[in-house]
Structure formats: structure tokens, C-alpha cells
């Protein structure tokens, strides 16, 4: 089975029903993608498959139908994605555990919509839980990142 992750194609030999999350974390050591619930209810495991946000904890590796991007490769090495810069600017993270999922979801949202309304943000982000309650700063950071992307 072939799997392309962060630009590199791997030949892997695992059970086809193993969720992508555990291939990333335990087989590849890409621990930036988090385990939170295992049933697509918290969004901590959000990655991109061909640029679209997917919950990797319920996505069987055999069903991955595109190139996978994780938080580790959201930006070019040594740089930050506009969303990550906004997260720093707004000092969003507290415990930080859900933030890779939040950032991947936000980046996917802004990839198709650089002027999201609050309703767009609710729709794209409500699947990702944050027990530290950083939602207000996430919302502000997304608007800020969108503004900078439009201006760029």
C-alpha cells in the first residue's frame, strides 16, 4: 500500500482498516496530529487530504484517496502559515493539544474562502473541540489571517 504524506511517498504494510491517525503517529512518528476521541467528535486529528480537512481517526488508511498533509508540513520548513502567524499574534493556544486540528481546519477554510463570515467559521470549526475554550481567539485569528491573505 502506498501513502503520500507531506510530499513523501511511503510503502506501508499495515492492516488496511487501521485509521490514518495511527499510521501517522505510531508508524511515521508524526505526533503533531492528535488523538482525542477516535470517533470524529473532537477534530483533534484533523489533517488535509488533497487540501480538504479530514478526521484521520476514522479514515481507514486504505481509503485515503489523496496526498496527506499534517501540521508538520502546513508551512515550508522554517516558516509559518498565515494561520499559524495569526495564532501567534493572538496568543491562541493554552494547553495547545487541539490546536493542530484547529489550525488545519482553519487553513482549509481559508484555502477556499479568504473572507469567511462568522457563520462560515462556525460551520468549519464547530467540529473541533477546545476544552481550554480558546474559541474567541480562534475566531479573531481566523478573521485576521483572512485579512492578511486578502491583502497579500
Amino acid at each position, binding site marked *: 500500500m502506498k501513502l503520500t504524506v507531506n510530499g513523501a511517498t511511503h510503502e506501508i504494510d*499495515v*492492516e488496511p482498516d*487501521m*485509521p490514518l*491517525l*495511527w499510521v501517522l*503517529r*505510531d*508508524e511515521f*512518528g508524526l*505526533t*503533531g*496530529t*492528535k*488523538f*482525542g*476521541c*477516535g*470517533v470524529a*467528535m*473532537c477534530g*483533534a486529528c484533523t489533517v488535509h487530504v488533497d487540501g480538504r480537512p479530514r478526521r484521520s481517526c476514522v479514515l481507514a488508511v486504505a481509503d485515503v484517496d489523496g496526498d496527506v498533509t*499534517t*501540521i*508538520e508540513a*502546513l508551512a515550508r520548513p522554517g516558516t*509559518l502559515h498565515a494561520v*499559524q502567524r495569526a*495564532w*501567534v499574534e493572538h*496568543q*491562541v*493556544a*493554552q*494547553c*495547545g*493539544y*487541539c*490546536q*493542530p486540528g484547529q*489550525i488545519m481546519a482553519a487553513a482549509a477554510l481559508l484555502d477556499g474562502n479568504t473572507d469567511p463570515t462568522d457563520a462560515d*467559521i*462556525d*460551520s468549519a*470549526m*464547530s*467540529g*473541533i*473541540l*477546545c*476544552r*481550554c*475554550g*480558546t*474559541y*474567541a*481567539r*480562534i*475566531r479573531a485569528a481566523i478573521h485576521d489571517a483572512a485579512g492578511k491573505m486578502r491583502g497579500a
Partner: protein
Amino acid sequence: MGRFARIARRTFLVGSAAIAGGVAFGYYQYRKKPANPLSPAAGEVTLNPYLLITQDGVTVITPRAEMGQGIHTTLAALVAEELDVAWDTVRAEHGPASATYYNIGVVRAGLPFADYRESGTHEFVENVIDVPGKFFGVQVTGASASTVEAFEKMRKAGAAARHALVEAAARRLGEPAAALTTADGFVIAADGTKLSYRELARDAAEIEPLRDPPLKDPATWRYLGTSLPRLDMEAKIAGSARFGIDVRLDGMLYAAVRANPRLGGEMKSFDATAARDMPGVRKIVDLGDGVGVIATNTWRAFTAVDAVEIVWGDAPYPPDSAGIFDEIAKAFDSRPNATLRDDGNVDKAIAGAAGVIEAEYRVPYLAHATMEPMNATALLKDGRLQLWTGNQAPTILRGQAATIAGLDEADVLVHTPYMGGGFGRRGEYDCSNQAVKLAMAVPGTAVKLTWTREEDMRHDFYRPAAIARMKGVVGAQGPVALKADIAAQSVSRALARRAVGFAFPGPDRLLVEGAFDQPYGIPNYQVNGHIARLAVPVGAWRSVGNSYNAFAHECFLDELAAAGGLDPVQMRLDLMAGVHEPSRKVVAAVAEMANWAAPPADGRGRGVAFTYSFGSPTAQIVEISQQAGGIRIEKVWCAMDVGTALDPRNIDAQIGSAIIFGLSAAVSGEISFVDGAVAQSNFYDYDVLRMYQAPDIETRILENSDGISGTGEPGTPPSIPALANAVFDLTGRRIRELPLGNAIRFV
């Protein structure tokens, strides 16, 4: 890990010690009051190492659990401020488990005194409690006490180090120390000669540190009082921050466990035949009270443990919630454990009054549901045990691990990585103890145990369910009598039993905090705590007793206000007048922020609540609206007095976090029992607030109190009654049982 091990070894050195690659500075202070005979035995408080000067900056040892509250950044700032170094050269590390890092603030938070009545309390603490606190040497993160406790200690660590560095420079330059200044990690002479801290560090380590170095005038603070960029921010947004669950070691195996869902019940037998042959399974481990599966991948372990057939014994408590609440209610029949508030003569005032108001409030058990499920990694090798796990109590955890493994504590090394939330859950050792047992089954190989979300939800130490029976009388000027009887399991006794094997007798403050210790001048005012005897596992949950007592107390005050035709804000202001001015000011502030004097818009309702907890008086107003599908929480205003605000932006984050945490509980938080087991298992039946439900939050930080107080928890308690009071304001429905979502729909 290598770096960590180096730091750990340093703590075994005595005095200020120069070592390869860095220098550790110690700061310690014997008791100021030599009258206390226990003082000399404080030999265990020998060295208090908070600072390493490295080749490229300074590393501050910040020995409190970083679970999101930003404590590493604030503690590092305390040292950096006095040391006089550039912020971008500062790093923070948790450091090793050590009695050196005892947290007396946690002990203080359990004392049976109302904090706002300060006289006497401090002296008692200084004379009696502080010394045993050091003696026990418990390193704990909790009780919103980290900053309070470190405020002087860590500034002095920085100041003592700076003094030694200046002294070393003075000797090298042959100039008086008084002629030298410091800036950004350099000692600077009058002629402009600059010596870096790095080049002075070895000499400075030979100089006896001042025991009581002078501290800067706060008016000259450069970092403290400002909003600093968090030291952990960039790693956390890049995905490179390493949480306990992210630990990776050579040759590591992965594990899952299954323990009795009837909590505390025995395991009668198990059959692992099917699991044994599943892909990647290496070992099945009998944990005594559960089964562990060690495999080559976490998912394989999860899948295999599901295939183990286990026969469980019954729970040692009534099998369903109704039976459990009956048991809690029985506690009212026994004499109170304590009456920590007894002003006037409440029974007489009630007996002689017309129109006595009575109400019963109920709250359910609650799970912590940290985003990072419980996990721990253990490696037993060559007679030494290493543990990597997010934890709030490393010295206790180490002791437990040593006992299980049959090792000396000195041979157990506890690593404390970032925590994906704590909220009190990571002060427990159940998961790490399981990891130790698993590691003992495969000596020489590291094992990472990860709990499924279901295991996590159903094996928590829950916020206790509680019942509060309230009676009150209100007159034209305000409440004249208030009597509260509160029944719940004792968190403090449960914590003590687990940590040291026995429960301390005496009044249980946590049972009644948030009710007995509020700064209201009600003339006849009594609060009784009744301990419910139940074996449901309970523990500390963000704000502990305040989390349920504030709901009953502040909703009942709202009932009294409504019955007396009084404005609930003005009534509180009147009750606080002459009792505690900082509390009165936060209520006045929040009323101004929310423009309380003007009525809310049509279709909107507002509720107010106040709680004094962890030294921080906190007032909130919640505004809600009626939407087609239900009630929406629109806005929360919060005013909190913290005495001294060290990092305003981070305090704002903590307040907002605590409010969302409280509102999540108020709207939907409920752990219930069916057939002896917790009925909920994942976020689909234990949901918390999500983006679309999260209100706008506006905070104001006041500094009218003396000293400094905690900010991680005090935002939670008033959020729950403020919402319930807003629901009453909007709908006329007085909901006295949580979660509110069982009675009305939220959108």
C-alpha cells in the same frame, strides 16, 4: 530526554554548583521566625534550584504543570524580571520531581478559613502550616496557587542569582559591586565594560547566595505586569510541542487497558484467547483489577483489548443515579461535618419569619474530559524506572510508582511533559500506575499506555454530585437569613486517601467552599457541610467545591432578590458594603461593563453571579437570547480582582477558559450511572461548548486586593449560576438542577 536527565542530576548537588554546560543557582530561605522548632529540620529545603545559565541564554526551572494556564511563562518571567535578562533568551523547563518544589499554596487553599477575612489566617499559616508543608514536600500544581506561591520565591531566586553575578564581576574587575549595573544578561561597569552572565556564571556559583535579596520596586518592572508572548506558543502551533502522548522511545511498544466500568469493583476472570492472536499483540498483562494489552501500535492495542472477555464484579455503590442521589440525601440526616459559617442565629430568624423561602439544588457528577486522554509511558531498565506522563503531582506519582515497582524513590525518574489539559484530573496516578505494571511485564522495553476516550470518560475521578438545601428570609433591605445545608462526597478525603493512605479528620473546607466563605453581611447566616459516604471515585475538578456551591448559593440569592423585589446587583453591593471592598468593586465593575442599569433588549435576559474563590473575587453577568430553536448564550462580562496582575493577556485567557469550562457544565455536563457503570462514554454523549455556541467574553482585571491571587479557576464558579439566573430572567423558569440542558434547549 538527555537534557532532562542532566537537569535532574543537578538537583542532587548541594549548594550552588558549577557543572558542565551550565550553572545551577540555588535560592533557599529558612523560616523567618526562628521560634518554630521545626525550622532546622527544614534541611530538606536545602536547595531550591530555579535557574540554569546556559551557553545561549537562561533556562528557568518552572516546576508546575503546564496544562494550558501559561504557568511556565509567568514563572519564568518572575525570575527573568529580577535576573535582568532579555526575554528572547529565556526558556522554561518543568524539571524533575522534587520535594524542593513543594507548593504550600495548595495546603493553604484547604484551610478551613474564609480567605477574605484575613486577620489571623496568615499568622496561623506561617506558624503552623508552612513548616509541615515543607516537611511533607509535596510538589503539586493546583488550587490556583502556583503564581501566588512563587511570587516571592522565584523573584528572589532571580535576585539572588543577579547579586552573585554582580559580585563575581566586581571581584574580576576590582570594582565595588555598587558601581556596576546589569542589563539583558550582562554586568556593565561605569566605563562601559560588559561581562556576560555566561562568562561570570562559574565564579558566581562559588559565591554564597543571599538568603533574602532585595527585590525591585514593582514600579520599575519590565516584564511583570505586561503581556508577554508565551514561551510555549510557537511549538504548540507548529505541532512540535511534545505532550505525554507524543513520547517516542527506541523500541517502544504501545498499550491499552480495560478496567472495571463498575468503578472499584473486582475483576473475577478474563479470557484473552482471541486477543492473543491478533496482529501485533505482544503480551497480555493481568493488572489485578483489569487487563492490559501490549502491542506494536496503539490502534492494535485498542482493537485487541476490545477482544478480551472479562467478567466484572459489582460496583461498591448503588447501581444507578437515583440510588446514588438517595445515598447523598441520607447525609443530611447526620450531624454536619462542619459549620464553617454561623453568624447570628439563623434558626431563630427563620422560625420567627413569615415567607420563608426554601429550595433544593442538585448537580451531577462531572468528568474532566481533558482533550489529551490519559496516558503514561514507562521504562524499567537496569533497576531504574523512568516515567513520562503529564501530571500535576510528580512527587506523589513517583512514590506510587516506586512502591509498585519495589524500587527506592531515588531510582524513579518522573518526566513531566506538556499536558493536554489537566483541570485536576492529572493530579491522579491511576494511569501511570498501570503503565508501571505494564513496563514491569516487559523489562528493558518502554511501553506507552494510551487510554481510549471511552476508558477516560468512564474511569475518571469525578466532580462529586451534590445536593444543597437552602432556606432564606428576605426583607425590604435585603436578605436577613440564609441557611445552606450541603451534602456531597468529600473530595479532600478522597484525595488524601489516595495520596497518603488515610484521610485527615476535621472540617472539610472544600465541601462547602463557594458557600461558607462569601463576603456577604447577611445577619443570620449559616452553612453546614454533610459528607456523603459513597465509593464513587471523586476528585478535584476545576474550582472543586466552588463549582457546585456557587450554583446553589448564587441562584438562591437570586431567588431571594426576586422574592424581595430587589435588584440582584444592588442587593449584592449592599450585602458586601463594609464587608469586603474589593468584592463590592468587582460587582460594581461588571454592572457597569454590562450596562446593567439599562434593561436588556427584547428577547434577551441577563443574570448576575459572584463568587470569591482562590483569593479572587469574581463577578459575572451572562446575557442570553431566545432563538427559534432555543436559548443562545450571547455574551459574558467578567470582572475579577487578582491583587497583582502579572500577565494581563494570559489572565484574560484564563478567565475566558474558565467561563467556557463552567458554561459547558451548565449546559450539558452530566455523568450518570446505569448498572453500576458510567453511562457516558465519548463526546457524543458528554459534549462541551463548541465554536458556534461560544459567547463573546469581555473581561476586566482589577487590582484592589492586597498581594496576588490565582486566576485559573475563579472564572468557573459564577458562570454557572449567572447563566441559570439569566434563564430565569428571560423565561421565568427557575431551574435548580444541572445541567440546564435537561430542562431547556440551548442553541
